[in-house]
């Protein structure tokens, strides 16, 4: 047992976080979290000030996804807490580890509609992995310990710790436990050798097997195992959008993401496959469209760490529950033991490669000099392979999915589940804090960037030089595309009127703003940004009429793509 020291709840919270290895907190102070803020004067944890609490949560989220350790954000009670809620929900939808600490009114004021009181525990419940509200200071060390454990183990997620103000100021003898018990939480499952063996058998007997890599493959960093399985069994690899880059997209077996805006070759091959090894995916509607068209033919092997995902959206013939890295490693080992290694290309793999090269040559792209494909291929060409890319939400995000190839696995992150506009920029800041030595680029649209653009203040003042890469069509482009496609061009509420001027906006924050109006200017702008010590916004005006294609309309199957004409 550790020696007991008497201290305030606020100090215990910071001490417990230091013990968890926390180096920085993204946040914004207010009345109800002042005691915790005062502790920043007495500890080594860096505070990174945001201009809106939602951005603090996205920064913590970006930090968490890149470092695979929970990012921490602070907000005060009431509006501070409700402001981070969108960020918490975003992390939950994408299984990102996060600790959100909110101030709360004093215990004896709870329920009396006090100033800046909100029932954040009640509000956050459906969008957190777990929520704590310690009612006495002495509970704090264990709450923090459990919070980090829950956030980062199993299927990761956000944990909320809501601390009433008097619990922060009250003193108690504090014990910082090394061990604790959470009876109803079992994040680990043993390797499932039996079902992995059955899976191998099913894959070997399939005519047209394929791997579908989901976000879980990235979260558990199962990159080497995934590649080994694909290469040993000669399996073509598609991914979900969240799984983009779990497998190098430049690999000959890679087909890229499937889905509403998946790669044509990926959607085509997914629709033809007869057996899928699905790794860490929930078969979301955006990924699979409707499976009914070919699900009778398709045998599904579903690997996931979350047992509740098995059969939730899609029935599986074989379920392998547990960490996908662990079970893929078992698969690699069994393949080695059995000396199974495919060397000849099957008819299926030949067909896949032909389809891939057909679409590489024949997918029509925007003819203009600054078409989305050309812009993003230029970015790819100039970015070192270890660079981290985040995206906002909208057309630019789907163009990034189509035209920005991830070379090094686990370097591409997006708000894929909740689809939160404004996520990419603060998440890029969090990612840069996690990995200060690699370039971090937020591929953005003008609509999304506007939602959290005030994080420029954080990037500049805290010296976090990320790059914002705006494909600026001065439109809420994805909505506009749907209005063009499904509403007979009745455009409503989408025009942004080139407001604001993003170059001037960047400059007003002390960041660098560059407008690129030709491929030559774009080339220079990217090189300039990569060598800049200060955050850079590159504003690239594009054609507002450019659509994201291919497009699988909602409720239709992957084989019914709308293609560029």
């Amino acid at each position, binding site marked *: 047992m550790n020696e007991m020291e008497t201290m305030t709840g606020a100090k215990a919270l910071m001490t417990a976080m230091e013990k968890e290895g926390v180096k920085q907190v993204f946040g914004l102070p207010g009345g109800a979290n002042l005691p915790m803020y005062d502790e920043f004067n007495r500890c080594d944890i860096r505070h990174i000030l945001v201009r809106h609490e939602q951005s603090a949560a996205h920064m913590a989220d970006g930090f968490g996804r890149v470092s695979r350790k929970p990012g921490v954000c602070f907000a005060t009670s009431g509006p501070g807490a409700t402001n981070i809620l969108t960020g918490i929900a975003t992390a939950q939808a994408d299984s990102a580890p996060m600790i959100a600490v909110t101030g709360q009114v004093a215990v004896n004021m709870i329920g009396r509609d006090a100033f800046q009181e909100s029932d954040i525990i009640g509000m956050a419940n459906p969008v957190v*992995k777990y929520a704590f509200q310690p009612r006495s200071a002495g509970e704090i060390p264990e709450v923090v310990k459990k919070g980090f454990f829950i956030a980062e183990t199993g299927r990761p997620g956000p944990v909320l710790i809501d601390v009433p103000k008097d619990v922060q100021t009250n003193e108690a003898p504090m014990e910082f436990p090394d061990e604790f018990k959470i009876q109803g939480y079992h994040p680990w499952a043993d390797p499932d050798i039996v079902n992995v063996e059955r899976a191998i058998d099913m894959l070997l007997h399939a005519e047209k097997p394929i791997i579908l890599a989901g976000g879980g493959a990235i979260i558990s960093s199962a990159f080497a195992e995934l590649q080994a399985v694909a290469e040993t069994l000669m399996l073509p690899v598609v991914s979900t959008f969240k799984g983009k880059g779990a497998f190098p997209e430049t690999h000959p077996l890679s087909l890229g993401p499937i889905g509403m805006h998946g790669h044509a070759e990926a959607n085509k091959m997914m629709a033809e496959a007869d057996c899928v090894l699905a790794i860490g995916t929930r078969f979301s509607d955006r990924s699979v469209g409707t499976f009914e068209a070919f699900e009778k033919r398709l045998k599904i092997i579903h690997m996931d760490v979350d047992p*509740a995902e098995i*059969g939730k959206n899609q029935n599986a013939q074989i379920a392998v529950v547990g960490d996908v890295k662990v079970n893929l490693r078992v698969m690699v080992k069994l393949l080695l033991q059995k000396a199974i290694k495919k060397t000849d290309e099957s008819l299926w793999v030949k067909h896949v490669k032909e389809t891939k090269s057909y679409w590489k040559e024949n997918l029509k792209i925007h003819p203009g000099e600054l078409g989305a494909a050309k812009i993003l291929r230029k970015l790819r060409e100039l970015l070192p392979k270890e660079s981290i890319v985040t995206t906002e939400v909208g057309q630019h995000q789907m163009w990034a999915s189509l035209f920005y190839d991830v070379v090094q696995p686990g370097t591409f992150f997006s708000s894929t589940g909740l689809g939160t506009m404004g996520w990419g920029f603060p998440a890029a800041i969090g990612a840069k804090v996690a990995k200060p030595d690699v370039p971090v680029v937020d591929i953005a649209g003008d609509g999304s960037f506007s939602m959290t653009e005030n994080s420029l203040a954080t990037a500049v003042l805290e010296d976090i030089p990320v790059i914002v890469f705006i494909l600026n069509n001065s439109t809420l482009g994805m909505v506009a595309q749907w209005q063009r496609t499904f509403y007979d061009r009745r455009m409503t509420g989408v025009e942004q009127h080139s407001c604001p001027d993003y170059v001037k906006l960047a400059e007003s924050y002390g960041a660098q703003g560059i407008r690129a109006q030709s491929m030559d200017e774009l080339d220079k702008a990217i090189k300039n940004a990569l060598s800049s010590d200060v955050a850079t916004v590159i504003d690239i005006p594009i054609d507002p009429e450019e659509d994201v294609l291919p497009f699988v309309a909602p409720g239709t199957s992957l084989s019914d793509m709308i293609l560029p004409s």
Partner: protein
Amino acid sequence: MWAILSILVENKPGILFKITHLFRARNFNIDSISVGITENPDYSKMTITTYGDEKRIEQVVKQLDKMIDTVKVEHLDESKTVFRELCIFKINLSNANDSMEVNKLANAYGGKVHDVKKDSMMVELSATPDQVKAFEELARPFGILDVARTGVAALQRSGA
């Protein structure tokens, strides 16, 4: 299908809220719910009855199991389970014979009679939902003035 779920949870504030919230958020239905402390005061047991096809019930169980506050979640097999709910009916008496008739009916279902008044009486019934339904059908002609039901409580038989 109708399913009885038995959920052992840590006896902490706010858990009933989380469980019912999960049912709402995931579009599941609660047919009845009963909650009480167990022999160990650290735990409460909830019995929830719900409807859905097999896949749906399996999904409810998995989602409940995933909750950190649930210690054990079981889908009970009706044939191996003792399950009852407590109901109190207030029944209208309009004819002279009604009191006797309702008394007979109550006896037939193992019910107890309370609060016998000139124009109404109460029947307390501890029975399965099917039996309650049957009783209700037979009592309806007299006029059911009010009813309160606890929801099902259930325990698996030993050795089952």
